[in-house]
């Protein structure tokens, strides 16, 4: 951990600055804790057995929904099968404890392990596919699960279910509060806190980025697959504990208890309460579960219909859920929305000025491509390309559209593989390296379409670069990071202009302290003055900080203005390569760009 | 533009108890603006109703453009190119201004009985409707309901509707009734402009308008033709003066 990343922005800091907080997560957590405490302890103090039992179950559902929320939004995994996970753990514990007499704690661990296993099974397809695919898989798992419970009656007691009694957990210890009551109160609170902490952490951000833009994640050195595994595992363990707690609360498990309906309850609760809001699951369970099952118990026949209608209504009327809508109102009322205007290249240049020392390109080779060929079906995008980029130089890569520039860039960052040939970074053969591994070799890139995450503050967007840094960075960058944190901690990223969005990407690579930076058409859509600023920045990166820059660009003036060497591609082949003057004189190149250089 | 647009001979209409129009012989020259004046109850509107066959004459003949129309029904008269505006402004109140005019245009489309096509086929008329509405200064009111228009505008609408038929003979029944002096100027100009190439017969009380607009004036009194001639001649006629003195100051 570096010094910069130790200073988390916290609520107090946000309040002292005049800007409105970017989100109200912390407040929501506080309210949520109070609410859970109320539902957990309240009925006990009231002393009504029915309410005690009901709200214990409610609290378990709240906890499960919190993990659903985490999985659904923070990790972007659409799972409709959390009910089955809960069931796995509950059944696992019940089988071990109830049928085989294993001690409860051990049985519980077994149950949780079963749940974790189930979560990993879910994660398996999630390695390859996302979104509704996953939804279908998890949903079918949730459908199959109770069927299996019935079919495998040799182990599960089939349709009869398993009854369990754990008197030790039920005897009150003080004020009529039983250990069980305590557990089912504390666990959801813990779940909430864990959720909050993960969200504030680097892990949480990495998960979030992985779900929204896997390419960006990989180019920042994150393994999206690992993140998904982690997310499913965390959610499964959390839900598994819920399953363990479910057992003493209900004292009975049967296949009907874990049909798809249960999964829907968790999912719908998150949606109705407010996707991604800390408080969402709590409010959601109150509406989805408590309302039909407790308050309108005489209509219990219609509860499935009510789930559906409530959710439908929420999607139509409050697309952000109840809490989400309130949060939206709050941020609408408070939007400052001017901070991001200060996000300009010249500002950063001024800040960074004087931090580096003058450097010149060395003769060491940073990147080398040997006879690289990349095919897409019949189209040969990169055709036997040989390319050498020296350390510390600015290397322009130009060519008409479809000449293979971006394809080459994708190969270099590991997002796609060469069909033939090989390439080396800092002398290491990286031909078959995955993108994240390449990224961790201090290589950074930008995308033509900037990857901006509007759910994160501007600073968090930038911070992704810092997160991806390998090892300790320079003081200058740390200082810049701190300045940015105070400046942009509560600004919205979605208000940035197109040029600024590009700049965010560029600044990420700066914060990442990559030694090799690949820019994919960074100047497209920048104004003249912005372009000049950008040229200054690139020059600064190369000459002051000694970075190797590969610049894929259409703007010939820009390239000729700053590049040390230029490679011209045409239809996947290198037409010409060398210093700008030599390339400009090349007849083939002149032919290609004739009449185009007076922009 | 020769010959007579309208000729009547011995036109008589008697109601139970009294004779509204008595042996009137009128001849209206093609292309002229012809005024029918006379005190209240002189039978002017009845003459109009007879000309358009809204009332059947008791006796006498009516020729329009040389054709004897005694046997025809009102709508057939209209199809001969005789178009009439009514004494009390007469629009289709629940239709929009646009539709009011379009209904008139529709007739030439020959789809009186076309009940199988959608009304979208009427959009070909829209351009002409807009032209006509613009001509009478109603361009901005196209989507209003006719009943919402103030009186003067209703008149204008009625004239637009009448013009939509592109009539050869225009019968205007007191076009200035109920109009303010500003509107009168406008409508006068309008009448003058539409009279190009048309025959206009009007009943009008406002003698100044008659003097200004009309080529020929016929005076009716108690159902009979008192005299006719240019306005100057007629206004000098003592009988006319007497007829008017008796009434117009009442």
């Amino acid at each position, binding site marked *: 951990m570096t010094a910069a990343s130790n200073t988390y922005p916290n609520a107090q800091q946000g309040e002292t600055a005049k800007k409105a907080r970017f989100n109200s997560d912390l407040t929501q957590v506080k309210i949520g804790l109070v609410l859970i405490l109320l539902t957990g302890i309240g009925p006990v103090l009231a002393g009504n057995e029915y309410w005690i039992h009901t709200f214990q179950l409610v609290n378990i559902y709240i906890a499960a929904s919190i993990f659903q929320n985490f999985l659904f939004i923070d990790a972007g995994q659409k799972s409709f099968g959390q009910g089955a996970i809960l069931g796995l753990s509950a059944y696992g514990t019940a089988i071990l404890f109830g049928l085989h007499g294993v001690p409860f704690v051990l049985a519980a661990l077994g149950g949780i392990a079963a749940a974790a296993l189930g979560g990993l099974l879910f994660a398996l397809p999630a390695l390859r596919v996302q979104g509704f695919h996953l939804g279908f898989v998890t949903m079918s798992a949730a459908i199959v699960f109770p069927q299996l419970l019935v079919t495998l009656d040799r182990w599960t007691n089939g349709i009869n279910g398993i009854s369990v009694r754990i008197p030790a957990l039920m005897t009150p210890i003080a004020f009529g509060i039983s250990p069980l009551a305590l557990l089912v109160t504390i666990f959801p609170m813990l779940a909430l806190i864990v959720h909050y902490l993960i969200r504030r952490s680097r892990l949480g951000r990495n998960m979030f980025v992985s779900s929204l833009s896997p390419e960006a994640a990989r180019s920042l050195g994150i393994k999206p697959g690992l993140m998904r595994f982690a997310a499913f595992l965390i959610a499964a363990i959390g839900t598994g504990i819920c399953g363990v707690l479910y057992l003493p609360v209900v004292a009975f498990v049967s296949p009907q208890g874990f049909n798809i309906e249960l999964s829907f309850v968790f999912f719908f609760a998150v949606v109705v309460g407010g996707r991604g809001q800390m408080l969402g699951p709590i409010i959601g369970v109150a509406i989805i579960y408590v309302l039909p099952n407790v308050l309108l118990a005489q209509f219990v026949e219609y509860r499935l219909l009510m789930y559906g209608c409530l959710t439908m209504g929420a999607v139509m009327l409050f697309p952000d859920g109840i809490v989400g809508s309130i949060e939206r109102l709050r941020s609408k009322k408070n939007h400052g929305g001017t901070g991001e205007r200060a996000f300009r290249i010249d500002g950063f240049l001024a800040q960074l000025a004087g931090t580096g020392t003058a450097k010149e390109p060395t003769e060491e080779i940073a990147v080398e491509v040997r006879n690289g060929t990349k095919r897409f079906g019949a189209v040969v995008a990169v055709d036997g390309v040989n390319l050498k980029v020296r350390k510390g130089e600015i290397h322009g890569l130009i060519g008409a559209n479809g000449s293979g520039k971006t394809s080459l860039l994708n190969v270099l960052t590991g997002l796609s593989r060469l069909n033939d040939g090989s390439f080396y970074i800092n002398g290491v053969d990286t031909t078959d390296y995955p993108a994240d591994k390449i990224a961790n070799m201090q290589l950074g890139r930008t995308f033509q379409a900037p990857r901006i995450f509007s759910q994160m503050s501007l600073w968090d967007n930038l911070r992704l670069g810092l997160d991806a840094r390998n090892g300790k960075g320079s003081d200058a960058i740390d200082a810049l990071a701190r300045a940015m944190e105070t400046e942009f901690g509560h600004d919205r990223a979605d208000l940035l202009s197109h040029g600024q969005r590009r700049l965010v990407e560029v600044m990420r690579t700066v914060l990442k302290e990559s030694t090799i930076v690949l820019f994919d058409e960074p100047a497209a859509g920048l104004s003249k003055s912005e372009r000049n600023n950008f040229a200054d920045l690139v020059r600064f990166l190369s000459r002051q900080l000694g970075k190797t820059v590969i610049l894929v660009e259409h703007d010939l003036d820009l390239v000729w203005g700053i590049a040390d060497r230029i490679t011209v591609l045409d239809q996947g082949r290198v037409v010409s390569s060398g210093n700008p003057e030599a390339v400009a004189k090349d007849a083939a190149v002149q032919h290609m760009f004739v009449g185009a250089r007076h922009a | 533009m020769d010959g007579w647009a309208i000729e009547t001979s011995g036109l008589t209409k008697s109601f139970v108890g009294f004779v509204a129009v008595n042996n009137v012989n009128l001849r209206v020259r093609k292309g002229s603006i012809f005024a029918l004046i006379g005190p209240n109850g002189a039978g002017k509107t009845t003459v109009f109703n007879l000309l358009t066959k809204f009332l059947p004459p008791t006796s006498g003949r009516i020729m329009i453009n040389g054709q004897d129309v005694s046997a025809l029904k*009102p709508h057939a008269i209209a199809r001969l190119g005789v*178009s009439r505006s009514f004494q009390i402004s007469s629009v*289709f109140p629940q239709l929009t201004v646009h539709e009011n005019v379009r209904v008139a245009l529709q007739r030439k489309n020959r789809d009186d009985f076309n009940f*199988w096509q959608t009304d979208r086929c009427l959009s070909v008329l829209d351009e002409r409707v807009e032209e006509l509405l613009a001509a009478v200064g109603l361009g901005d009111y196209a*989507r209003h309901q006719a009943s919402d228009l103030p009186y003067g505008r209703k008149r204008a609408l009625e004239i637009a509707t009448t013009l939509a038929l592109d009539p050869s003979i225009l019968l205007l029944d007191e076009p200035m009734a109920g109009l303010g002096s500003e509107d009168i100027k406008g409508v006068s100009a309008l009448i003058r402009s539409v009279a190009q190439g048309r025959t206009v017969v009007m009943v009008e009380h406002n003698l100044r308008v008659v003097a200004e607009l009309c080529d020929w004036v016929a005076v009716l009194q108690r159902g009979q033709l008192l005299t006719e001639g240019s306005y100057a001649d007629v206004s000098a006629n003592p009988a006319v003066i007497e007829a008017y003195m008796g009434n117009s100051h009442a």
Partner: protein
Amino acid sequence: MAMAPLETKIAAANGSVRQRQLIIILLVAVALSAAPFLIYPMFLINVLCFALFACAFNLVMGYSGLLSFGHAAFFGSAAYISGYCAKTMGLPAELAILVATSCSVVLGLIFGWVAIRKQGIYFGMITLAMAQVVYFIAVQAPFTGGEDGLQGVPRKALVSAMAPMSDRQSYFFVLAFFLIGFCIIYRIVHSPFGHILRSIKENETRAASLGYDVDRIKLIAFTLSATLSGMAGAVKAIGFQLATLTDVEFFMSGEVVLMVLVGGLATMTGPVLGAAIIIAMQYYLSEFGIWVKALHGMIFIVCVMAFRRGIVGEIGAYLSRRRGASD
């Protein structure tokens, strides 16, 4: 420039209005297809037949301004004819309906030819009187079954390969005819002819002075209405398996007036709604016997005194008033 905001709204709304219409149509389609599973199908069949009847009647009363008090003649006679064709002659239902509907064309032409030159109430009285002739014929003619009417008309159609249809199936059979009829009426109302009809209703003399042969146009409208009323009656005889004297009685003529009046004159959906309300009243209040008729009378009075635009009409007026206010 007073028009600008309104035009903007119209233009801007145009896309969404069409879409909203589309959605409403979809919703209605869903409701219509789900209805027989939620509501007693025979009731729905009854409603549909009378809705079509009322819509057809609205064509004369609402859109042409002619008060016909004899429309039961078309409805009832067509019911008898199609019932007879289907039962005694064993024709398939579609053919029976076709025959009966064609007869209604002729009957409509005769009625119209006699009555059309009369206006307003005269028209109503003459049509009433003529419908009475049809009624007496129905009472005395040998094939109508007198007081009993034609019962147990078979529901065998070509589409069912002459197999008897169940209630739900007949519902869809009737629905098809209703939709055809409704679409025809919609087309008529929104056709060039429909526009002329409206203008005649608004101001007959003016329309004549524009060169329209008012009598002919009204005659055509009346005949169209009679035809569709006949279709409604014919379909009713099949769908309900019954044709009786009540179908030709002049109370029936009054009832259809009431349906249109309650729903809303000169609206497309008003008559349907009106029919549904009146039929529902008859169904669900049947235990009150004759008092239902008194209730009808009272609704008549209320409608005429205070509620002349009918339900749909009043809603439409309210909406357009609100739109006007928001401008």
